[in-house]
């Protein structure tokens, strides 16, 4: 067994420099080239090692083998320099064997990995395409948001001008019609007086419609809050107010306690006022009027309801119920603009819910909503 030190000894071989006849320029070219190659390989293999450690590349085993192979290659070149003067050819051969093993291993390891590498490259391409598509969608969404904000602003300006411009002529119509009645009423025929009263009432009605429309649009502009709202408390408050408007009416309110939802308190108040005012109004002719507010469990969702035992409506017209200005009862029996339920629907929809109703003529109506 040759000892390590004897491996390094000359052992009768000639230094490699003899092959170059110790030609100065030739020797130094070989030396400098081998040195640079060796240095480069060393640096590359160190980089690969650091990369694998830091980034956790896929196929890190293969990269490490590759790194080892490069390091070994570098070492062979340093050995070339060494054997120029010291003919330790057995050491050189040993290093070459190591290099050979590393290269062959890398090559063998690489073949089966080709498929995986190609698939990975494909996935990267797909993911890049998706990113581009996502960016495109995002910019389209941004553009849409900007245009929607512009529409909202136009709507605000429109409401602002309606606020001013529609009311003034109505005021004139009512004002001067009343003036005619006040100043010349006694000189007019009863028919004339009646006709002028119709003008006045029409102007009043239009004023209510304008107010209703403005409120409807005001309620659905702007940001919607998302906070806990105690519906039971709201309903109790509204019930008290309604009772105060007509203390002589006997209406029993049955309100389920502690029904709390998430939403905008201002909007939900408006929706409940509309629903309860309707219930109050349409039980106006009912003895023992009863208005209930509560919650039903139905298929995982909570459904809230306002129920009354008033005059009800015919279900065959129920699709018109929530239309703007739609009415199912004559004005003279039950006054109103027909905009209350449209308002309720818009509010509930803004909260992501649905509203619907069931009723029987003369037996009352129940309005359901989800939030």
């Amino acid at each position: 067994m040759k000892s390590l030190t004897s491996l390094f000894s000359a052992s009768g071989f000639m230094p490699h420099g003899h092959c170059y006849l110790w030609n100065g320029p030739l020797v130094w070219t070989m030396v400098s080239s081998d040195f640079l190659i060796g240095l480069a390989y060393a640096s590359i293999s160190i980089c690969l090692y650091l990369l694998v450690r830091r980034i956790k590349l896929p196929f890190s085993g293969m990269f490490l083998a590759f790194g080892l192979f490069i390091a070994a290659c570098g070492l062979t070149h340093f050995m070339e320099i060494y054997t120029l003067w010291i003919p330790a050819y057995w050491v050189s051969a040993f290093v070459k064997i190591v290099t050979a093993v590393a290269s062959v291993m890398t090559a063998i390891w690489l073949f089966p990995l080709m498929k995986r590498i190609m698939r990975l490259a494909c996935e990267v391409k797909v993911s890049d395409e998706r990113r581009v598509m996502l960016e495109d969608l995002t910019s389209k969404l941004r553009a849409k948001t900007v245009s929607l904000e512009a529409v909202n602003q136009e709507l605000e300006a429109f409401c602002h001008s309606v606020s001013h411009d529609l009311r003034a002529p109505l005021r004139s119509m009512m004002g001067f019609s009343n003036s005619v009645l006040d100043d010349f009423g006694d000189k007019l025929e009863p028919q004339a007086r009646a006709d002028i009263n119709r003008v006045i009432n029409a102007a009043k009605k239009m004023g209510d419609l304008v107010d209703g429309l403005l409120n409807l649009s005001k309620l659905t502009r702007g940001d919607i809050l998302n906070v806990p709202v105690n519906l039971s408390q709201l309903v109790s408050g509204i019930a008290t107010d309604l009772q105060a408007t007509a203390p002589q009416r006997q209406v029993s309110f049955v309100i389920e306690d502690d029904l709390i939802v998430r939403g905008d308190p201002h909007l939900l108040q408006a929706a409940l006022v509309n629903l309860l005012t309707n219930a109050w109004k349409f039980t106006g002719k009912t003895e023992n009027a009863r208005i209930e507010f509560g919650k039903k469990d139905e298929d995982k969702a909570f459904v809230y309801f306002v129920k009354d035992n008033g005059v009800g409506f015919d279900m065959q017209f129920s699709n018109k119920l929530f239309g703007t200005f739609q009415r199912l009862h004559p004005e003279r029996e039950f006054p109103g603009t027909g905009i209350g339920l449209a308002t309720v629907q818009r509010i509930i929809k803004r909260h992501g819910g649905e509203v619907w109703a069931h009723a029987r003529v003369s037996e009352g109506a129940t309005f359901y909503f989800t939030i």
Partner: protein
Amino acid sequence: MRENKILLIEDNSDDEELTLRALKKGQFSATVDVVRDGAEALDYLFCRGTYAKRNSKDLPRFAFLDLKLPKIDGLEVLKQIRANPATIYLPVVVFTSSQESRDINAAYSYGANSYIVKPVDTTQFTDAIKQVGQYWLTFNEKL
């Protein structure tokens, strides 16, 4: 005793007529001067232009101010009234169709004494004017 004067700053001739009739119904012992745009309102109050000969000490007891005025906007008129030491304490009652909160906020922030939305209903309109007139002419102490 100096006669009580009310200044009506209003561009709409129908509203002007209805306001004057309502004031007459209130039977106030006051004359009403009417100006029909923002520039004329400031000329009147600062005694310049066509109103250069007006006595600057002869200020109205209060003014009705509409917001939508030609030439100079109602809010701008209000701003200038409050900026001028001669008129800084003049009671200004904003009397307008607009119920928009941004108008209400702006009016108060520029120093309006009160903000009244012109009712469409005639009875309410007349009542509002009579009450405003009575308050500023009878109850409120003159400066």
